[in-house]
């Protein structure tokens, strides 16, 4: 596959892994956070941890929008879906995520009209095709998905569509990173910066991390070679005592971001004063809501939203795992009460969540030494 296979080339990957081993000082421990859930997923899926020396520890960051969404928001969104007039739409990743009163799929089995869409534009299409129903799009995601929600809302308004709304849960990545860095038990040497988010916001918003916090950050792509090359770039900065923002993913990420996408977001959204992140608590100015000009499309204003707040079970240690203080398997519930099929905690719910990725790809193989696992060539 073009533009994929090149970044999965065995010879190049072996070279990058060799370079990492050469650069990593065995007497030192490196704690590197990959911010984005897509990175976490790729690291496990391609077995990249097996290629890194023991001195490099990867910490899985907050960049999984499903994981950081508080449970109560799901109950709030689904409360409207009990109205038989409403078609509840969301991305596939949301469908199994439980609220206190069940997941979207469980609501579907009980009779609610719940449908998977692949983009907000599909939800709008559904609204046009069903003029006697109301289509609600349950929007999640960082700056990666927020522009498409914004453009869809702009189109809905331009067309005068009256049976469409958005339940907005969009969050912004920078406050999440700041919350992690502000956490007192946090020690991170450098960041693999999010790839998809950066296609929209560009690289400038990370400069404070490099300049004020003195942590190097390399915006990275998602293929095995991307992640290893970015790790090489980070180790070089650490070795040379530099801390700057570098862009490994420059085939996709423009330094200044996507101006048109940012404009659309600014037209439709404004910052909420504060928003709750599952596992991290309330973070000020970290999420988006619809501007007054779009009130007619704001599900939170159209429907009576109960404002459910659900605290995670005390035994779930999602916050500690999210901050890298605990490994997924060190949580008391991991693999027992909490599994990808029946998630208790936030990080088990999405395939991009670190607990789900660890459970799916890594968990049972740790029972045997690495050498016994390799298939001889």
């Amino acid at each position, binding site marked *: *596959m073009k533009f*994929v296979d090149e970044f*999965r080339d*065995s010879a190049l*990957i*072996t070279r990058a*892994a060799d370079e990492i081993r050469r650069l990593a000082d065995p007497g030192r421990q490196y704690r590197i956070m990959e911010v984005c859930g897509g990175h976490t997923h790729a690291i*496990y*899926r*391609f*077995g*990249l*941890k*097996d*290629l890194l020396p023991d001195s490099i520890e990867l910490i899985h960051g907050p960049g999984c929008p499903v994981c950081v969404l508080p449970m109560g928001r799901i109950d709030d969104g689904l409360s409207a879906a009990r109205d038989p007039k409403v078609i509840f739409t969301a991305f*596939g990743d949301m*469908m*199994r995520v439980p609220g206190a009163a069940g997941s979207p*799929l*469980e609501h*579907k*089995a*009980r009779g609610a009209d719940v449908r*998977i869409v*692949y983009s907000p534009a*599909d939800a709008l299409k559904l609204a046009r095709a069903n003029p006697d129903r109301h289509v609600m799009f349950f929007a999640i995601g960082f700056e990666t998905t927020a522009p498409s929600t914004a453009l869809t809302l702009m189109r809905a308004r331009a067309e005068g569509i009256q049976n469409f709304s958005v339940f907005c849960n969009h969050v912004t990545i920078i406050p999440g990173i700041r919350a992690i860095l502000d956490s007192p038990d946090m020690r991170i040497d450098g960041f693999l910066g999010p790839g998809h988010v950066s296609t929209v916001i560009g690289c400038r918003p990370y400069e404070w991390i490099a300049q004020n916090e003195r942590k190097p950050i390399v915006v990275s792509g998602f293929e*095995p070679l991307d992640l290893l090359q970015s790790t090489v770039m980070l180790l070089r900065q650490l070795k040379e005592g530099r801390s700057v923002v570098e862009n490994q993913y420059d085939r996709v990420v423009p330094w200044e971001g996507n101006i048109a996408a940012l404009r659309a977001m600014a037209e439709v959204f404004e910052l909420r004063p504060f928003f709750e992140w599952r596992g991290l608590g309330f973070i000020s100015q970290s999420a988006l809501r619809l501007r007054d000009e779009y009130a007619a499309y704001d599900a939170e204003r159209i429907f009576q939203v109960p404002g459910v707040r659900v605290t995670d079970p005390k035994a779930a240690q999602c916050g500690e795992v999210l901050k890298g203080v605990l490994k997924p398997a060190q949580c008391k519930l991991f693999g027992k009460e909490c599994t*990808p*099929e029946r998630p208790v905690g936030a990080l088990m719910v999405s*395939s991009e969540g670190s607990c789900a990725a660890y*459970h*799916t*790809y*890594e*968990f*049972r*193989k740790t*029972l*045997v030494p*690495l050498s*016994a*696992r*390799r*298939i001889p060539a």
Partner: protein
Amino acid sequence: MSASVVPVRFRDTQIEMAHGAGGKASRRLVDQLLAPLLLSPSAGVLADAAAVSIDGVRIAMTADAFVVRPIRFAGGSIGELAINGTVNDLAVSGARPTAIVVSLILEEGVSADTLAAEVRAMALAAARAGVQIVGGDTKVVERGKADQMYITTAGIGAYLPGLDLAPGRVQPGDKVILSGPIGDHGITILLARGDLDLEADLCSDTRSVFPLVEALAGATGGALHWMRDPTRGGVATSLNELAIDSSLSIHLQDEAIPVRVTVRGACELLGLDPLHIANEGQFLAVVAADAADRALTVLRATPGGEGAVVIGDVRPEPAAAVLVATQYGGTRIVDMLAGDPLPRIC
């Protein structure tokens, strides 16, 4: 013990689409509710077909239900799928498919032409597979209660001589063989729904695998230890079931697993693993290591088996797990399908 006092461990409160997707939830439903209440104690390990003895003669018996939407898709349709699916369940159990009965559940208002096309498709598939359709039943339900038609089947077959297939026969060192490229059926159905605005030049792989099974069985005999057709839940789910039922470990090599570029592309785009995607014309076989070359030679010489490959081997540890080695030397666990990425594919 009468059925009323058999303890039921099934704790799910309602049936969801995942219970029909062939993965973990399906297995829970069978293991915790259906099997304890329904199966006779002599039923043994659940497989694609059950062995029944009548006056000392063992026959293979299977049942299947087809609810695919849409009913026609590139490379096949519900009628063809119903016959091939039943034939394949018997074939991978080591039996020559002999006879099938068919029940049709028709939605009020379905056109006679649509029905005739599916009946023709069934007749043609049966003729191709060399199996007789010997009876059936028809019911009609109100408009809106079915997607045009559902089909259920039951089939019987005669066991091929010299075979003994069971998870318990699988040994460390055995080789895992796959008959050809995976994921064609599941991705074809997904694209046929039209929800994705994706198009690809791809066909369902629905076909009878019996000719391949017969050739393989003839060449390997007792060295053939286990077979399965990886339908819903895909190769990952079938091999996880084997790993669990045998308490062994299956180690696959990522680059050895054949996946067409279009299937791989669609999976990349949609975040799906080809190992979880359904197939309707492929099968998995586990053979003794010294029979693997023989098995590949005979499969590749049989029409439709040109793509057969060894994709991995069986090891003692870690028990009950499937691992994939990536081409870079890393490994990952491949679990059974959890949830339901592609509803109603067969």
